[in-house]
């Protein structure tokens, strides 16, 4: 890979591309919303109320953010623990996305909680160990640290700190195992958060297995995000990739498609077991039941079949469509549990729908992530290998 191709855009770089202009507008609006949020209060920018304490910022920024950042632990586990070395070139982008994803989750929480400067309290001041949210908080805090360390070799290569890099690379296996343990815990605990409210979540979504569902769905969410990001990166960051990355990319997509399809079929199975265990079959005939089937068949079973067909026929386009579809399915599932099927018993007037500034803030946070990703992939060896460390593995 020649260095000129990766060099940070110099004077000749055209800053005024449509996407850059859009980014600038979104970031500017986000800044205004941020000022509003912190000077006028949560009530001024959101539709949250006493019956609906959690809205889009938890439903999307936290629940979807964490689930979709699961690509980090799944990819690194596949490569370093299961020994599937052909996925090696996918690890760095996945770790970077996971790190940025978690960093943004924490960033977004600063908007949602009432007194964000107290966010360290659950860990350092008063530990509410009976709370699943404590479990989530502790794991996210630790995992963010792990992801940061896992990401540092890229930064060290960029900066030329060979000794430090070598030290961190030696920790790879331990960090990966730690990452899988922490991910298992907080991915599942996010689902278990809702187990305390059986009277508020519709029985089709409430289950004693909620934590298992969240963990399993996070795995295929992560795999699908890696495929989805690959699609995006190939479209927009093709010039940043080296031959190894390009050569392995299709194999990664097909391998992940096969794995995702398999896991999704298993997920459909345990969801049906959940229906049987709680004897919730009769709800399937109701409107909620139809909506539940849209989620389970339309957004899990269907993309799982697309995945398997795509992997079998080596049809990259099909795999990519399945990837986006699955990601949307995860978002739908998390929305259902946190917002749509939550408080299902309340009269329509008391139900929640996010406000425009709430949606704007969420879009702002997504764009902060995209901008950071573009900056880092432009500067650091993420989509290509640094020439000095090429033959190390």
């Amino acid at each position, binding site marked *: 890979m020649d260095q000129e191709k990766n060099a940070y855009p110099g004077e000749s770089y055209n800053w005024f591309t449509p996407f850059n202009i859009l980014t600038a507008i979104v970031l500017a609006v986000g800044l205004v919303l941020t000022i509003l*949020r*912190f*000077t*006028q*209060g*949560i*009530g*001024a920018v*959101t539709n*949250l*109320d*006493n*019956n609906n*304490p*959690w809205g889009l910022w938890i439903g999307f920024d936290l629940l979807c953010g964490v689930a979709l950042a699961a690509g980090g632990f799944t990819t690194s*586990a596949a490569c*370093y*623990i*299961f*020994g599937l070395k052909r996925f090696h070139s996918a690890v760095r982008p996945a770790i970077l996305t996971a790190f940025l994803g978690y960093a943004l989750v924490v960033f977004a929480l600063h908007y*949602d*909680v*009432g*007194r*964000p400067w*107290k*966010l360290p*309290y*659950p860990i350092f*001041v*008063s*530990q*509410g160990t*009976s*709370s*699943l*949210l*404590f*479990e989530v*908080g502790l794991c996210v805090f630790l995992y963010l640290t792990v992801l940061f360390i896992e990401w540092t070799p890229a930064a060290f290569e960029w900066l030329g700190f060979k000794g430090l890099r070598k030290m961190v690379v030696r920790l790879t*296996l331990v960090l990966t*195992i730690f990452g*899988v*343990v922490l991910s*298992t*815990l907080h991915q*599942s*605990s996010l689902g*278990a*958060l*809702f*187990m*305390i*409210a*059986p*009277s*508020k979540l519709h029985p089709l979504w409430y289950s*004693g297995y*909620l*934590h298992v569902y969240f963990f399993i769905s996070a795995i295929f969410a992560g795999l699908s995000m890696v495929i989805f990001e690959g699609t995006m990166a190939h479209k927009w960051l093709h010039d940043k990739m080296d031959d190894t990355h390009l050569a392995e990319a299709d194999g990664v997509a097909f391998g992940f498609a096969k794995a995702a399809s398999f896991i999704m079929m298993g997920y459909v199975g345990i969801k049906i077991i959940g229906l049987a265990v709680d004897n919730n079959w009769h709800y399937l005939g109701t409107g909620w039941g139809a909506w539940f089937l849209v989620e389970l068949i339309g957004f899990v079973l269907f993309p799982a079949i697309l995945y398997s067909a795509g992997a079998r026929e080596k049809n990259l386009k099909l795999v990519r469509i399945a990837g986006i579809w699955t990601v949307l399915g995860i978002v739908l599932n998390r929305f259902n549990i946190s917002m749509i099927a939550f408080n299902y018993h309340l009269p329509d007037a008391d139900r929640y729908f996010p406000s425009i500034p709430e949606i704007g803030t969420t879009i702002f946070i997504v764009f902060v992530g995209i901008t950071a990703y573009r900056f880092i992939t432009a500067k650091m060896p993420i989509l290509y290998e640094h020439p000095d460390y090429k033959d190390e593995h």
Partner: protein
Amino acid sequence: MAISRRKFLGCLTAAVGATTGVGSLAHAASNKAFKGYPDSFGVLHDSTKCIGCRKCEQACNEVNGLAKPEKPFDDLKVLEERRRTDEAAYTVVNKFGPTVFAKTQCNHCQEPACASACFVKAFKKDKTGAVIYDESLCVGCRYCMVACPFNVPAYTYNDPLTPKVTKCTLCHPRIIEGKLPGCVEICPKEALVFGKRADLVKLAWKRINQAPGHYVQHVYGEHEMGGTSWLYLSGIPFEQIGMREDLGTTSAPQLTSGALASVPIVVGLWPVLLTGVYAIAKRKDKIAKEEQDTAVKDAIDQATEEMNKQLTQLKDKMTKEQQTAVANEVKKALEEAAKKAEEEVEEAAKADTPDAGKEDE
């Protein structure tokens, strides 16, 4: 090494202490049920006696120093709409039908969902029975509001710097001074009775049994969500006075104890399992590499052998050919020599024919 009797007993005490400690910690997942603090207080709300005068709302407002509402407390038109507790009202009375009223406030659960859900222990079930909130710890995640099955806690969403959760305190500061909660003290119809919860349960059942036709045969709060410090009596089904009858009797901490219990198991087992998977994968790679190496070596050996064989054959062949060639050459040479000799002989014979006899001599 000698161990004194005193030391031994000391160790024993410590060991017993440790096991009892562990025992009490483990009780969340055991079959023991927490029955609440002994002698804790509660309030019995007999909704059949409530006349919807809103005096309790007024007293609550004053006792807690809350903002004055737009409409005065003697404006009973407020009762026409369904209201819930919020930052300006820790208790509200709602109207259900022409003469049926019911009061809502924090029920002060025996095992509160809010306290179980709080990740900074900002909620505490006090031994008086009150569930107390500590604003100084609260981060404002509002998980307590998600967790509360009665939808009681409210949040001051419009306060940018010091937002907090608000809810009834059971007038905890007044109780420890020996006073009654504000609402109980002011109630003109004795629809509210303050006392020890255990006594109130008995009182409630006594009232039901004395006038079975007057009451629904159920003391709401006796078992709901593991029991609450506030107890309710009603003349019509509780569902019709805005109280959910589908909450069950499982306390909130029990709902999540299973998921929480899986945490240490994952921490303990996952590293073992994953290291095992890693070792197997690595060993498979190693064996594959060994097999490959052996195969390559075998192939090379075989190829070398083959080559040697071919070479030998070639050599043999060549030697043979050479030999044949030499033999041929020799033969040729001999033949030629013989021929030459013959010719010479013939020539000589020709030349010496006359003297043939001489030669032979």
